[in-house]
């Protein structure tokens, strides 16, 4: 579905991602873990084609097509979608109008809004005065309406209270399970979301570089035990060893 080859990205002249290699297969879910400022959001923004994130080297290949030069909407229409960590406010555009512009025909805006506890938000300006949790729900609501083949989730659990995290997990599963081939890239700082959504593979992003690739459960165990500082010295060796033992 998605292949990233030797990707380096700069933001306002500063390199934020260095030589990234990643692959997400059809139907697969990849988790990307990493501390604040490690480049997780930048990775998604670069894949989506946001203009501040300049590709200085490497390729992004989506559905067999090199997309480095495509505009954001072209990428979206090819089947990528994202929930943003900090989306902008769009004044005067109601959430209902927004969803109706982007939704698939089979999406029932009013009915779904109820399930998201967003009924009262349909007639509010997109993101205006939304709390952290409300933004998350509104983003997921839009993503579900949009129903992409490859979904990017930027810290879906952050700022969400315990009740709503179950809802977040449910919706993520609905989006990912809608079609057999649907794939996802889940970014998380804490890993809490894995209680509700299973990932197939995981990796750690540190200082703009991929540090290890392996079973997300083991990566989370290691990170919990040694912290992300542990990753600096380990360079993925423990995970590699564990994987070898398992085989």
């Amino acid at each position, binding site marked *: 579905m998605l292949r990233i080859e030797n990707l380096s990205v700069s933001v306002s002249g500063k390199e934020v991602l260095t030589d990234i290699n990643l692959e997400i297969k059809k139907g697969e879910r990849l988790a990307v873990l990493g501390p604040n400022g490690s480049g997780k959001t930048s990775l998604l923004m670069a894949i*989506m084609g946001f203009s501040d994130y300049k590709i200085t080297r490497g390729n992004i290949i989506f559905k067999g097509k090199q997309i480095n030069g495509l505009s954001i909407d072209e990428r979206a229409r090819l089947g990528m979608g994202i929930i943003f960590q900090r989306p*902008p406010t769009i*004044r005067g*555009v109601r959430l209902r*109008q927004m969803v109706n512009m982007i939704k698939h025909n089979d999406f029932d805006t009013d009915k779904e809004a109820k399930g998201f506890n967003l009924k009262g938000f349909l007639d509010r300006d997109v993101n205006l005065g939304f709390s952290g949790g409300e933004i998350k729900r509104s983003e997921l609501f839009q993503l579900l309406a949009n129903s992409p083949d490859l979904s990017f989730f930027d810290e879906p659990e952050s700022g969400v209270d315990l009740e709503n995290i179950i809802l977040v997990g449910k919706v993520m599963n609905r989006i990912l399970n809608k079609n057999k081939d649907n794939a996802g890239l889940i970014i998380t700082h804490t890993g809490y979301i894995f209680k509700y959504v299973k990932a197939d593979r995981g990796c750690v992003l540190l200082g703009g570089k991929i540090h290890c690739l392996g079973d997300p459960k083991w990566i989370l165990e290691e990170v919990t035990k040694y912290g992300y500082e542990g990753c600096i010295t380990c360079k993925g060796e423990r995970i590699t060893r564990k994987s070898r033992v398992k085989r």
Partner: protein
Amino acid sequence: MQGRKNNKEVPGKEVDIKSYKSKAEEKPYLEDLREISSDQRKNMLSAGVDPSHQGRSGTYIQIDHSVVHSKSLYPGLEVMSITEARKKHKWVDNYFWKILSVDADEFTKQAELQPHQGYFLRAKPGVKAVYPLQACLFLNENNIIQNVHNIIIVEEDADVQIITGCATASDVRRGLHIGVSEFFVKKGAKLTFTMIHDWAEDVSVRPRTAALVEEGGMFLSNYICLKPVKNLQMYPKAELIGRGAIARYNSILFAHPGAHLDVGSRVILKSENSRAEIISRVVSGGGDIIARGHLKGEARGIKAHLECRGLMVKKEGMIHAVPELEGSIKDIDLSHEAAVGKIAKDEIEYLMARGLSQSEAQVAIVRGFLDTTIMGLPLELQKAVDDAISACEQDAF
């Protein structure tokens, strides 16, 4: 700097009164508005005036210098020309130039020296009309001047909505409209006044407007100017002279290439606990806009807010926001917010990430920016405004 140069009000900018014809052909009075030409009907409709009277409590239509229709359909509402009103009620003279000064500038003088009618609208005490009154000031001949003097009185505890549409015939290019309007909102009364300007590329416009709001009265003024116009300068003023009086001005403006709009709203809060709000949304699609606002607090417990947002959508054009707050006593609360910028890139990209093209995203953002829901317009009017916004978008992108 251009901004600095434009900071001062120049009421006469580019207008030479003598270059316009002061005589216009006499138009016949129409008992039945179905006789109005289809071109006139079309242009009136896009300024929010419906010649079929559908959903209206009364109608005044003036074409050039002639009153072609004037009728109230609701008891307790008076609709007539200003000359008729002065004949009918001796006291109307007392309202003439009561809150505006006849020698304020060359345009007020012109309106007095060479008057061409204008409307008189009045709601008698306690009258609450469901449907709005409508008035239309129409330019049908090219190159003429139209000077009107309007008086609007909402008596104690009455509640009325008024729609005023100003428009031109499709073949009118050039003209000058001078509109003197004096509003009186009496004790406990409420007036919602919506004015839509729908002029032509080379028409100059000089409204001269003031309102007096008494105790517990409420004056809501909506102004919409989205169509081309050459140059427009106005700075309407409301004086709140009774306890708890309220004034609210909402404006949305779009400046097409070559247009010069110098538009503000001013509220003088003279009595205790009075409130005011001035909100403007202005878009430069290549033309120049000076968006002014002035709040002056002179009494205890007042609260007022001024908000001006400007959006630049083309390389050409400029927006200059000039918000002013003036307080002359403590225990008042005056605030303002102003922002001028281009469409934010992160907003466009956000919408693009949902699959909208760049131009679809821009249209959605500008449309949202010019949101009129705060104006609470009647449904039919909302449609006229939506159409005008769509036309602006086609010009801008």
